[in-house]
């Protein structure tokens, strides 16, 4: 964001005569090639999503007999796809399930990971390096490696919680833990160590230091992880498909089922797809800055 401030300054300082047509506000050369190519790329990038949005508001017949780019003159607009998909595929319940799965699965891991990150950042202990390297390594391991035994542990042969929200909360908490510890530790180690030092001299316990000082100061990193994790849990297909019953399942699994029955429900598919995108899109546009920070501080996830 520093570029904007530089911008403002140069507008006031630069004399008007140098601000010819070929220059940007901050005095850089205007680049027509960059403008044209970027415009094309942006169009290319948003076209498929726009096409889906258009198709989701068209009748089955219209969508099957004319391209979505012809919708403006070919017509055939309707909103019934949305009401029908919510009714037939039970997307309302699935949407609620998605929220009830994603919110706890986003927030619970933070509590556990934050304490671990605190220990990794502000304490010295035996095996610290090895344990942190375990975290780095586990982030690379594909989560598929855990599924078969987990189906046994959580399924009817074991705890018998497979199919319930609980199973999925537990799994996302565990799977999200390495990334969360990693992101939080990276952020915490940028905090001034002297704060912790002086709090210790004042006689604060580690619990107090964590709770009153470090946790509030780490909020940007916590929000960064939360944004990443929310998108990940909401958009997840594998875990939801394996560990949730049909009553408890998420929008993404419903959407996959609609894709499977392609042909009968093509018009429902588009509406369903758009419903599944709405919430993550809002999260994305509101929390974009946190998302970027989350990615730059810990890009990998098993």
């Amino acid at each position, binding site marked *: 964001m520093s570029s904007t401030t530089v911008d403002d300054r140069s507008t006031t300082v630069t004399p008007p005569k140098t601000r010819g047509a070929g220059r940007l506000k901050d005095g850089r050369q205007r680049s027509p090639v960059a403008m044209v190519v970027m415009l094309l790329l942006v169009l290319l990038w948003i076209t498929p999503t726009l096409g889906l949005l258009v198709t989701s508001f068209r009748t089955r017949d219209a969508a099957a007999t004319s391209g979505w780019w012809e919708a403006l003159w070919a017509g055939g607009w309707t909103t019934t796809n949305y009401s029908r998909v919510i009714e037939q595929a039970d997307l309302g319940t699935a949407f609620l399930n998605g929220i009830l799965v994603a919110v706890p699965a986003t927030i619970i891991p933070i509590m556990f990971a934050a304490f671990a990150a605190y220990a990794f950042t502000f304490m010295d202990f035996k095996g610290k390096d090895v344990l942190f390297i375990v975290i780095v390594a586990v982030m690379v391991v594909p989560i598929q490696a855990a599924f*078969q035994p987990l189906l046994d542990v959580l399924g009817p042969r074991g705890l018998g919680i497979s199919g319930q929200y*609980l199973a999925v909360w537990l799994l996302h908490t565990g*799977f999200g833990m390495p990334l969360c510890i990693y992101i939080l530790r990276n952020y915490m180690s940028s905090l001034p160590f002297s704060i912790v030092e002086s709090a210790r001299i004042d006689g604060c316990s580690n619990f107090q230091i964590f709770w009153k000082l470090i946790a509030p100061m780490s909020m940007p990193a916590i929000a960064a992880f939360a944004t990443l994790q929310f998108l990940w849990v909401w958009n997840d297909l594998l875990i939801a498909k394996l560990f949730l019953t049909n009553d408890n399942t998420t929008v993404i699994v419903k959407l996959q089922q609609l894709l499977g029955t392609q042909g009968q429900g093509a018009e429902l598919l588009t509406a369903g797809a758009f419903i*599944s995108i709405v919430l993550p899109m809002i999260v994305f546009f509101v929390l974009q800055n946190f998302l970027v920070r989350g990615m730059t501080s810990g890009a990998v996830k098993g």
Partner: protein
Amino acid sequence: MTYSHSTPPVGGETAVDESDPRVDDASPEATVPSDYGLQPVKLLIGVLGVAATLWVMMNLFLAFAYHPEWFFDSKILMGTLGLVVGVGGAAVLFWFINVAIEALPRKLEHGLVPYAFLIPGFSLMALTLFYPTIQSIHYSFANRDSTEYVGLQNYRELFSEGAFWSAVLNNVLWIAIVPAVTVALGVVVAVLADKLSASSEKWAKSFIFMPMAISFVAASAIWLTTIYAYQPPGAAQTGALNAIVQQFGGTPQSWLSIDTARLNSLLLMVILVWLQTGFAMVLLSSAIKGVPEDTIEAARIDGASEWQIFWQVIIPQILGTIITVFITVVILVLKVFDIVYVLTNGRDNTNVIANMFFNEMFARGQAGRATAIVVILLIAVIPILIFQVKQFREQEATR
């Protein structure tokens, strides 16, 4: 990063707790006001508190699964309670752990606090990652319901199947193409965006970044309906690709079933590139903005062209980020599943390892073969894992 062993200066807590008889012991630590030595009552409270919290948390959580009627079968109530119990329970748990640890003599306390803070998080990882991964390796030597050892039979079976090698080949293609294309596009977008005005740059980047928020499944639905859709020749085409082909006099194709030169796999890859370019662009863009202006200026004064500046000044300075992004996409591609599963489910030679694994496990119930596939995937990950750990070590050294 030294853990301070210094004791609080006198004055913080001057009054010696009278209720604690142990202070009378003439041990050297007892002269320090805040160290009470071992406090059995406090320790007991702490340990009992930890046990009680764990008991209550586990039972409450299990009650959601076993007795939903206790919660009036209300999903919203259970979801909210789950959040409260999970977060609140964790807080209470750590508080009691802290009480228990503080009750120990100061020296022991310092030694144990870090582990106490790590144990809950690591237990969760042990339950969901460490144990199952090791058990998967174990299962891969057993039969379809993991009741009897079969030695290397699962592996021998897989290695002798053409379908398996076809999936491996596809994975190799995905790895060879997707990360490179994603990084290249990411660099192009980042460089071009850098030349725009501040506000257009922000908007352009937002739009390219946006697919990050879209699930693989929704992205597949998007591309299937708007780009790859197929209608019989002569009819109005509803997919952009076939519309263009028909416009130029070609015959519309059912694109995702054409496996000549693995065209269908390539078309599936396009979807992943579309999703991931934004991610690459964001990281690369911040790296490009970090390239010092004076190095570029110096090259310009020396008479270097923009092209030379790009290749010889900018690229070498963002190489680290390029590698990071590349590796991240490789890891993602290695276990690519959703797109293949929902669009072709491996038909027409599009199968990949992760989809094969899913079908063996979920559709066919072949635990032995499924876990054998996973072990092969794990082995494929090892070089990347070593690289990541090395990279991390170097990073830490320069910290």
